[in-house]
């Protein structure tokens, strides 16, 4: 058995995690438009997916509650910002004088998503095991059906984003501006995750994930902690959803609210590494690059990549790709 050195310095638990890796990732993201100025679309969508995976991971990774319904939360953000920007829709129903600027629309969407997460979590977090996952599929399905069958959100045809006011003189439909927004979104999710790493909530979530009764014995209310994680995750996802809507300019429920998008978000986080801070970003990057490369080769067999990757990860790196590095690192540590 290895014994600790005699005069080992007192170890620290309270850290923000590997901040430098995040700084490097953000620097790469910031430089991307200057190098690949012609592939901004790929950049924006990859950043948004990374942000969604990071947001998902607050609930799925930290609290251990696997959601397969995050597309619904994303959709709430996208739909709210669009509906409030179209004068004859939400503003008219609420008797407002004119359209609501998208940044306010995004905040409203976040509030609605938080509310939904509260109700949804209250109903399902009392149960243990996979009930939450099942319920998340069901809730997303219900929301999709309502949107498709009711007229308020444009029905099955979806919505078009109208002209938007300028944000600090910036045109929101400029790809560079959208890249900036997506970048800010990823940066925010990274920042929040680093803060979570050092916080009481972060530790409580990890305790709940590992052992609910053990956590309860230590004064932690599992339901309340999971609700907090869900609300945080939902609000961030809705924020990303509203940026996504601006980027898409037109969207329909058949792409935005479907299960595959929910699955994709979850898989990026799982493949990247749920128990790490930056894992979801790496997962999003990997899947986006693979998707882009193999789209031309396999055309519609694109989904095959997901299948292969899931198999590879579950077989060879159950903790995700980042877990692979981590494990190698810790092995080096014990051998030393």
């Amino acid at each position, binding site marked *: 058995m290895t014994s*600790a050195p005699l005069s080992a310095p007192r*170890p620290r638990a*309270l850290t923000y995690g590997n901040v430098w890796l995040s700084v490097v990732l953000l620097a790469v993201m910031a430089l991307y438009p200057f190098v690949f100025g012609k592939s901004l679309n790929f950049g924006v969508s990859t950043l948004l997916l990374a942000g969604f995976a990071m947001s998902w991971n607050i609930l799925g990774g930290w609290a251990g509650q696997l959601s397969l319904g995050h597309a619904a939360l994303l959709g709430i953000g996208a739909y709210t910002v669009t509906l409030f920007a179209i004068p004859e829709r939400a503003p008219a129903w609420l008797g407002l004088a004119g359209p609501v600027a998208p940044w306010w629309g995004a905040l409203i969407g976040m509030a609605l998503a938080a509310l939904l997460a509260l109700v949804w979590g209250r109903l399902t977090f009392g149960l243990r095991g996979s009930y939450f996952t099942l319920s998340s599929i069901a809730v997303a399905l219900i929301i999709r059906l309502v949107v498709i069958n009711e007229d308020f959100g444009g029905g099955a045809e979806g919505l078009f984003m109208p002209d938007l006011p300028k944000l600090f003189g910036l045109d929101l439909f400029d790809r560079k501006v959208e890249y900036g927004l997506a970048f800010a979104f990823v940066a925010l999710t990274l920042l929040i995750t680093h803060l979570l790493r050092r916080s009481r909530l972060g*530790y*409580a979530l990890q305790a709940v994930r590992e052992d609910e009764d053990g956590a309860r*014995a*230590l004064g932690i209310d599992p339901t309340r902690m999971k609700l907090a994680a869900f609300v945080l995750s939902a609000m961030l996802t809705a924020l990303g959803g509203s940026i996504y809507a601006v980027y898409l300019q037109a969207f329909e429920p058949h792409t935005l609210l479907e299960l595959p998008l929910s699955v994709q978000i979850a898989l990026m986080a799982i493949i990247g590494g749920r*128990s790490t801070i930056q894992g979801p970003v790496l997962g999003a990057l990997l899947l986006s690059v693979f998707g882009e490369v193999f789209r031309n080769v396999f055309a519609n067999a694109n989904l095959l990549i997901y299948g292969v990757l899931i198999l590879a990860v579950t077989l060879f790196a159950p903790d995700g790709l980042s877990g692979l590095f981590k494990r190698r690192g810790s092995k080096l540590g014990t051998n030393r």
Partner: protein
Amino acid sequence: MTAPAAQPRPPQSGTPLFEAQNVSVTFGGLKAVQNISLTLRPGEILGLIGPNGAGKTTLFNALTGFVTPSSGRVLLSGRDITRLQPQVRARLGMARTFQVERPFEDLSVLENVLVAAFLHHSGKRAEDKAYAVLERVGLADRAAQPAAELNLARRRRLELAKVLALEPRVLFLDEAIAGLNPPAQAEMVALIRELAASGLGIVMVEHIMHVIMGLSNHIICMAFGELLAEGDPLTVANHPDVIRAYLGEDDD
């Protein structure tokens, strides 16, 4: 610490620290615990014994809020806490360990204790508190190690460190000593004595007879969910029913 092991109970005065009144637990038709009452004062150690299946763990769960009693009351400093959740009881000053120790395996030893220290402290103060508790139970040199790598004796100590970080007034220990080798047993016994001397009320379930007889001020022996005998260790040890139901089987 050096006080004689078996002391007569101090004279009754004021509200007890912890009290159970006629607690029963029924699962479907099965009466797992029937009409158990007990009283605990600060600094007192109450031992709970009985053969396997006597209902000790169920009673433990009922006293700590993990199972709701079907009848009876549980009081902490005179306040009725029968229906309070374990997490609320922790805030009020109750803490328990589990028979099968359950560290958060993804976390380091220090982080495990930190989770508990966050109950009453925040930020850096919580970390300092957690480290101080690790020093107290002799685990400070393992602070950075993943909890999953600890051996049984150290896991037990980690379990104790976690509940101590909650700064409880009443401590429930579910087989904290069984399974340890003799030196580790002696260390744990000394630690428990020290805790009681500092004013904690302790309820403990334990299988090792000489340990619990030596530690407890008062002993409750259960069999088939019912009270078989109670009193000071000597009285209970010599009780014919206890010998028949429990000790007789062990000492053949």
